[in-house]
């Protein structure tokens, strides 16, 4: 090899070498073998750290690593679950690649990952594929992450905004163009509405949030919203933002803007209360969690498949129907017994009271109900670890 080529190539290599020699391990990972002391740094590790998933945890110490991939909507919650799970199980490594729902389903079904995440439940074709992937066992689908989708707006002087589904749909189809439209005024008799133009903000990327929001619009206002439930925002002319952060940012920067985003990330923005039955309900986690119990399970699926068709038209009091449920997919049977044990322990932790609290504190999700937890635990208990 000639000199200058060698030297140019050698420079980064030398740098690399320096770095790898200088350090051996991350400061917070050196105590890995001693599982109790690894919780350092995590301030908000919810109180009862020690007997995590206590009832379910096998007597012998867990070790090894498992990987999952899927929807980025539950990325923050997964990070939180992983972090606190790993701090109680020092020899376990869980990873979750937020590659998106389709990637998550595909990787899970091809056996690339042992668990998956998805904003939508598996299609019937995919369920058929899952039979192979699960080595003859059952497919588990759990909506373990439930999060309200807030409809946030940026209008000076309007602190409280109530909207019926029809008005909301008209705003997003751009039929209603100004804030002082009679339809909006009818729902908000006390508010002083400006005559500013409405700037609707939507996701520019395909997302489960859009799918759930449009699903709500098409179920609750079918006459106005004729685009159905779709991943891609179908109405042209609005402002598009990438991801939850992009939408929140665009609403915050544009006077007269209104958009939909994960409720945990909207920060200082004000939120719309939507009409459910005779009252108006805001994006409150408890109100959102109720919808899962109020919704019917998808029929004709496995015993442990908790796919639900969210009942957007519910008239029940105190229920917020604009929610996103992200499913976690797993199998009751794995080729590798250790994988099975780890998945079992991790899933148990996710749905446990503590796990749900951790997710609420760190990702703003709605904790699942006790009824649903009991059901979910039946599925998780069915995972064969022998």
């Amino acid at each position, binding site marked *: 090899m000639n000199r200058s080529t060698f030297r140019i190539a050698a420079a980064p290599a030398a740098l690399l070498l320096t770095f790898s020699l200088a350090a051996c391990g991350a400061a917070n990972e050196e105590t890995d073998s001693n599982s109790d002391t690894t919780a350092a740094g995590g301030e908000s590790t919810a109180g009862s750290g020690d007997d995590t998933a206590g009832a379910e945890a096998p007597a012998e110490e867990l070790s090894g690593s498992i990987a999952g991939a899927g929807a*980025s909507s539950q990325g923050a919650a997964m990070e939180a679950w992983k972090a606190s799970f790993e701090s109680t199980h020092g020899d376990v490594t869980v990873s979750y690649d937020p*590659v*998106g*729902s*389709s*990637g998550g389903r595909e990787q899970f079904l091809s056996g690339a990952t042992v668990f998956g995440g998805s*904003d*939508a439940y598996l299609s019937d074709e995919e369920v058929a594929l899952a039979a192979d992937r699960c080595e003859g066992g059952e497919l588990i689908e759990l909506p373990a992450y439930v999060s309200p989708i807030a409809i946030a707006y940026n209008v000076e002087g309007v602190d409280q905004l109530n909207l019926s589904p029809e008005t909301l749909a008209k705003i997003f189809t751009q039929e209603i163009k100004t804030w002082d439209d009679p339809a909006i005024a009818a729902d908000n008799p006390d508010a002083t509405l400006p005559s500013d*133009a409405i*700037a609707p903000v*939507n996701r*520019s*990327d*395909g*997302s*489960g949030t859009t*799918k759930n929001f449009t699903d709500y619009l098409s179920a609750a206002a079918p006459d106005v919203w004729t685009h159905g439930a779709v*991943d*891609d*925002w179908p*109405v*042209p*002319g*609005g*402002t*598009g*933002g*990438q991801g939850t952060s*992009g939408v929140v*940012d*665009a609403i915050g*920067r*544009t006077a007269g803007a209104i958009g939909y985003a994960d409720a945990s990330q909207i920060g200082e923005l004000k939120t719309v209360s939507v009409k459910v039955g005779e009252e108006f309900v805001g994006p409150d986690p408890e109100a959102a969690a109720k919808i899962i119990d109020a919704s019917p399970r998808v029929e004709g699926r496995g015993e442990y498949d908790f796919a639900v068709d969210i009942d957007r038209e519910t008239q029940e009091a105190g229920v917020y129907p604009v929610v996103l449920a992200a499913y976690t997919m797993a199998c009751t049977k794995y080729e590798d017994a250790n994988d099975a044990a780890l998945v079992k322990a991790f899933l148990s932790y996710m749905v446990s009271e503590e796990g749900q609290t951790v997710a609420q504190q760190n990702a703003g999700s709605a904790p699942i109900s006790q009824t649903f937890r009991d059901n979910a635990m039946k599925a998780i208990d069915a995972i064969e670890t022998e």
Partner: protein
Amino acid sequence: MSTTAQPPAPTAASPTADKPVVRPGDKIFAGLSTASGVMILVTLVGVAAFLLWQAWPALVADPSEVRGGNGLLWYIGPLVYGTLVAALIALIIAFPLSIGIALFISHYAPRKLAAALGYVIDLLAAVPSVVFGLWGVSVIGPMLMGIQAWSIDNLQFLPFIGGPASPKSMLVTGAVLAIMILPIMTAVNREVFLQTPRLHEEASLALGATRWEMIRQAVLPFGRSGIISGAMLGLGRALGETMAVAIILSISARYTPVVTSPANPGTIAADIALQFPEASHGAHLATLVASGLVLFFVTLIVNMAARYIVSRRAAFSGAN
């Protein structure tokens, strides 16, 4: 022209002229070079085969199966248009700027200062595109709002001006892309300008030319091929830029000449990044890969055009 780079006949050049000398060094060197070239070709064939394999379902699918439900052309057409518009805006802004900056560094600034300035510009190439995206939305977007609003009030008659002004418009995206491609274009131009033979410059100055005349007579003609190469590298980056465009651009239209409003067509690369994670359906995924294939061809055509321009001026470059 091409004879000059030919190796001398071994017998004539070798010190021991009696017998032909086989130089292992030459053989190894030639072998390594050829092998590298072949390897790149093999990789590319692999990528192309992979792309075709992945895009095939969309190419043969019924138009209603394809993403958008109206066939490939319907889906990809506006994206190609958007890609070209964004890249064109970027190139229009960056091309004169990069030449100006490179000239300033190579021929105007004091030598010490020039080195430092070149360094600052190179540093920008290190900024990840996510950051350019965030910075574009929070700094450039608001900064251009005034100009855009003014244009909408006063220049409405122009076809590409239209309201309402948006900090996420095509113009803002193009401006940020221009800043992103400046470092690579400037770096290439600068290196090329610095390579101008000293003799050419001195000859020009000795004939009484002013500095600008010297640059026009000696530096720019010599660097033309390099300038175009740099512009193409920049254009390639602008065409393929993903994250920055995805973050900044508000995508909610198909074909539109307007570049100042929130209703813009998307670009291919940004669309792939935006739609890929949740593309649920086989044919939908394939549509995205097919759009990637189209981006391939767009880049190809742009580069062929550049090569054609350069080849017409080949006499000015050093080696051939």
